[in-house]
Structure formats: C-alpha cells, structure tokens
C-alpha cells in the first residue's frame, strides 16, 4: 500500500514534469533536422555555457516564485555585483576574497529585499521593482555609465577563467550551473528550509501556525536569489572581461520564463529545480536556434513569444481548486 501510493505519486510528478521535457525534445529534434550544426558536441557546450547564466538566476528565482513571490531585481543585482567584483579584481585583490565579497554583497542585497517583503510587508513585485530601479541607479553611479575592465592585475587572469575556462573539456560555467542545480535540489527536497519554502508558498498562515518563522524563510529565499544573481554577475563579468553598467537588464524576464516554462506555479507551492533546468535549457536552445537558423531579428521576438506561449499552454495546470 505504502509502496504503491509512492509509485502513484512519483508517476504523477513525472507526468506533470514531462511536458516541458517534451517541448525540449521537440525543439532538439526539430533543430537537428533543420540545421546539421546544431547537434554537435561543440554547439552543445556553447548552448550549455550560454544557458548557465540564465539557469543560475532562474534557480534563485525558483525559490522566490515557490513562496509565491517574485524577484525583479536579479538583473540589477547582477550588474552591481559584477561592477563591484570587476573593480576589486582590477585592484588586484585576492581572487577568493573577491568572489566571497561579491557573493556576500548579492546575498545581502537579496536579504534586504527579503526584509522589505517580510518585515516591511511589501508586495514582492513592487518591492523588487523598487530595488531593481534603485540598484540600477547605484550601478550607473558606481560605474559612471562606463564599463569596468577586469584587466590590469594578476588576479584578472584567474578571474577570467571562471567564465571562459575549461575543465576536462567542459566549460567551467557549466560545472557551476550543475553544482547550483544539485545544491538547490538538495535544499528544496531534503532540507527543512526547502520544505518550508513549499509550505510558505502553499499556505502562509498554516506555515506560520506551525511555528515557523515565515519572515526568516522569506529573507532566506530572497537572499538565495540575490546570492545566485551575484554568482551570475561573476560569470558574466568574467566571460566579458568587463562589467557593463547595463548588464542584466531584462534578465528577470528570461529567468521567470524559464521557471514558469519549467512548470513552477507563480502562485507558489508547486515546482521543481528539475523543471527550471529544463525551462532554462528550452530558452537557451531557442536563442541558439534562432541564431543558427538566421531568423531575422524582427522575427525573433515573434518566434520567442510563440514558443513561450506554446510551452506554457502545453503545461497549463488543471483549473486550480482554491
């Protein structure tokens, strides 16, 4: 009986997740037919490396969306953290210190979002819209509107490996992405705070009545989102060799699309990291495909909009019963 229902549950969860997988497979098959360069090892690595940035951000956003929130500030956090890290690298600071400080900065900014939303009782959309605007402003002030190059110190070479390096023939950002996925999966599935994330998104009041400090869960969740945005900022900056003041603008939309295409409900409580990984891959492959197929830039928006709509239409949930 116990075994049986377990199977029943897993089967259901596989079913509910496999629609994004189907979209992904269709995309891959269609592309392989239309372009013979698509299904090559080197293109696969290219797609994965390009996907890594969106995937890392989307992982953080998965937490925020799972609690029924949203984080629009990811792109701005990415930009300011990228800029700060570039300046630190250029000044020759120790590489580990640079990474640590940058990640802590992102974590801190995310936690400020969390504070606004929990203690300040702001709606997540507007709170992170506020910090998005604010931090973009900070970035422009900090960079004076100009890119900051990472070069000019000994650290630079090491730092630039983060985004451009390879290990055993596979780009380092791909490892980072996989690592982030695994940790996030573990947290969400097997750790208390992960279960509280689902609980909070599904029923905040019940979670609170169960003696859980929901405020702390929120601060944690937005902290993660900020932390991962900072990580994405490091990858971007390292790949480009410079931090752009406008880096990350609009990234929140791609990341949200990845999360939702992956089957996570914007209402909270339902979703998985596996889904987000698939969603990010769909977006990544789509961008790659549009380039490979040389779709005119005017039509790219059309194509992207259609794929997003089809992907979510396929995966639409049963009418919610709440």
């Amino acid at each position: 009986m116990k075994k049986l229902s377990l199977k029943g549950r897993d089967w259901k969860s596989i079913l509910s997740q496999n629609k994004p997988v189907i979209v992904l497979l269709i995309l891959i098959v269609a592309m392989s037919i239309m372009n013979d360069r698509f299904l090559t090892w080197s293109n696969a690595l290219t797609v994965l490396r390009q996907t890594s940035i969106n995937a890392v951000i989307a992982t953080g956003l998965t937490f925020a969306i799972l609690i029924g929130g949203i984080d629009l500030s990811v792109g701005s956090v990415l930009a300011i953290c990228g800029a700060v890290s570039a300046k630190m690298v250029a000044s020759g600071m120790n590489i580990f210190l640079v990474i640590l400080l940058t990640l802590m900065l992102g974590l801190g900014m995310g936690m400020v979002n969390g504070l606004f939303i929990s203690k300040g009782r702001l709606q997540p959309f507007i709170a992170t819209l506020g910090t998005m605007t604010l931090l973009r402003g900070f970035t422009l002030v900090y960079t004076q509107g100009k890119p900051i190059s990472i070069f000019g110190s000994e650290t630079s070479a090491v730092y630039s490996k983060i985004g451009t390096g390879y290990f055993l023939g596979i780009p380092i950002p791909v490892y980072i992405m996989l690592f982030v996925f695994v940790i996030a999966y573990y947290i969400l599935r097997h750790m208390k705070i992960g279960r509280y994330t689902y609980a909070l998104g599904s029923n905040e009041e019940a979670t609170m009545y169960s003696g859980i400090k929901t405020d702390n869960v929120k601060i944690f969740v937005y902290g993660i989102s900020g932390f991962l945005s900072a990580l994405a900022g490091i990858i971007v900056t390292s790949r480009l060799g410079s931090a752009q003041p406008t880096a990350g603008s609009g990234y929140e939309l791609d990341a949200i699309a990845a999360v939702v295409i992956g089957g996570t409900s914007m209402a909270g409580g339902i979703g998985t990291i596996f889904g987000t990984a698939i969603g990010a891959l769909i977006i990544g492959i789509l961008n790659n495909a549009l380039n490979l197929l040389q779709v005119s830039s005017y039509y790219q928006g059309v194509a992207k909009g259609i794929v997003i709509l089809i992907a979510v239409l396929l995966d639409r949930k049963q009418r919610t019963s709440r």
Partner: protein
Amino acid sequence: NGDEGDNGDNGDGNGEDTAKKIGLVVSTLNNPFFVDLRDGAQAKATELGAELIILDSQDDAATELSNVEDLITQGVDLIMINPTDSDAVGSAVAAANGAGIPVVTLDRSANSGEVEAHIASDNVAGGKMAGDFIVAQLGGTGKVVELEGIPGASAARERGEGFNSALEGTEIEVVAKQTANFDRAEGLSVMENILQAQAEIDAVFAHNDEMALGALEAIKASGREILVVGFDATEDAVTSVQAGEMAATVQQLPKEIGGMGVDTAMKILAGESVDEYIPVELQLVTE
C-alpha cells in the same frame, strides 16, 4: 561608493544669473558613447561658464518629449537635443520652437521643426567607412557577419545601411545578420552561436563597440582568426584595437560633438550666425 569621477552632478554656477542656461537632452546615458558626448559638452560648458542641464531620455521618444517640456518649464536659453529618433523628435523640437527656445541637434538630426544647427557625424557614412575597410582588408571577397543593434533603433538602421552599401558590388557575402541589442553579453552569445553555424567567417561588423567586444571574446575562445570592426571608438574598443585584437572601430568623436554643440549654442545665444550643418569628422581607428 567612493569615486565620483570628474563630472558627477551638475548644477554648478547656480548662483550667477547671467550664466546661460543650456539644456542637453541625451538619448541615453547607459551607453559609453553618449556618456562621452555628455562629458564633452559638460567640459565645454564649464570652460565657457555656461550652466548645462542634462536630461536622459532612456531611449524613449515620449520621455524625450517630456524632458524637453521640463526644460522649457525651467526657462533654459537653448536646448541641445541628441534625438532618440529623427522622426519622433519633431514634436519636441516643435515644443521648443513654440516656446521660442532655439534648438541644436546632436548626432542625430530632426526631420521636422526648426533647428538652428545640427552637429553630427553621419552614421550612414560611418557604416560605409567600416564596410569599405572590411572590403579593402578582405580584398573584395569573403564572408562577413553583421551584428545589429536594437531592432528599430535609428543607429542600427543607419549604420547597417551604410555598411551594406559599401558591400554592394563586391564579392563579399553577409552570411549572418543577427541582433545583439547593442549589448556586450549578447554580442558574445550571439557570436558564439553564429560561430557554431558558420564554418567560414572572415570578418564581423558590429553596430557598436559593445557588441564588437563581446563578439571578440567569442572569437578568441573559438581560436579562429576573424576581423572585428566596431563603431564608436569607446575606451575599451580603442584599447583593444591598440592591442591588436579588434581590427578597427569607427570613431565619431562624441566628446567633440558635445563640445562643439555647446560652442555652437553659445554662439547662437551671442547672436552670431552658425552653419546649419556642422559635420564632425569620422575617423577609422586602426592599429
């Protein structure tokens, strides 16, 4: 967040009533090119003792119009506009005309309204310059990639137009033409994808340096030998050209445009007559 740089805030010279108040509406200050343009103007204004009010249109024509209206409210003596779009700026110019405030356009022209002077280097000409350079370098034959700016943006249109006109009648084929939205990170990933798709690429022309520098990273990583030509001659790009990485970039001398703008504005305010079109020369920065 220590270093404020040289310009920081403006609003110096507030006290003197005699100082001329000049408004500068810039299409965007998120792009180093226009930052340079602003810096040039600011430096000149400080030198000539004029008060410069700088507003940012954030690439939106409606915001631009609002900015001009707000400048009119402030009673500026002259408005310099760096339009987001030559057509759409018409209303803004008309608004200034209506308030009796003279207008000078920078970098992009206005297709309607009364403009005292237009100071620019021609985007179409710049595109052609880049095209001609590539044609010459490749000996009139080869495969090139064009990285386009934000679809629909005038700079993207005009630079593309000039570039393609240069290729006409040559054996050069544009094998890929994709947008990277003037963004360096997108320049990188779009170029990566194109590199996957195209076995043979001889040169890349990017509608701005940001995309060119992004593309350059992709090319470096691929280990292929490809000529990269950008546009704007931003600091990073010039460094890159000097280092022998980028082949060339079209220099528009944005500081010059800004400075010349203020210069011209002061002349107009002093009642001197000025030329309707003041070209700022373009030059190709090569190694």
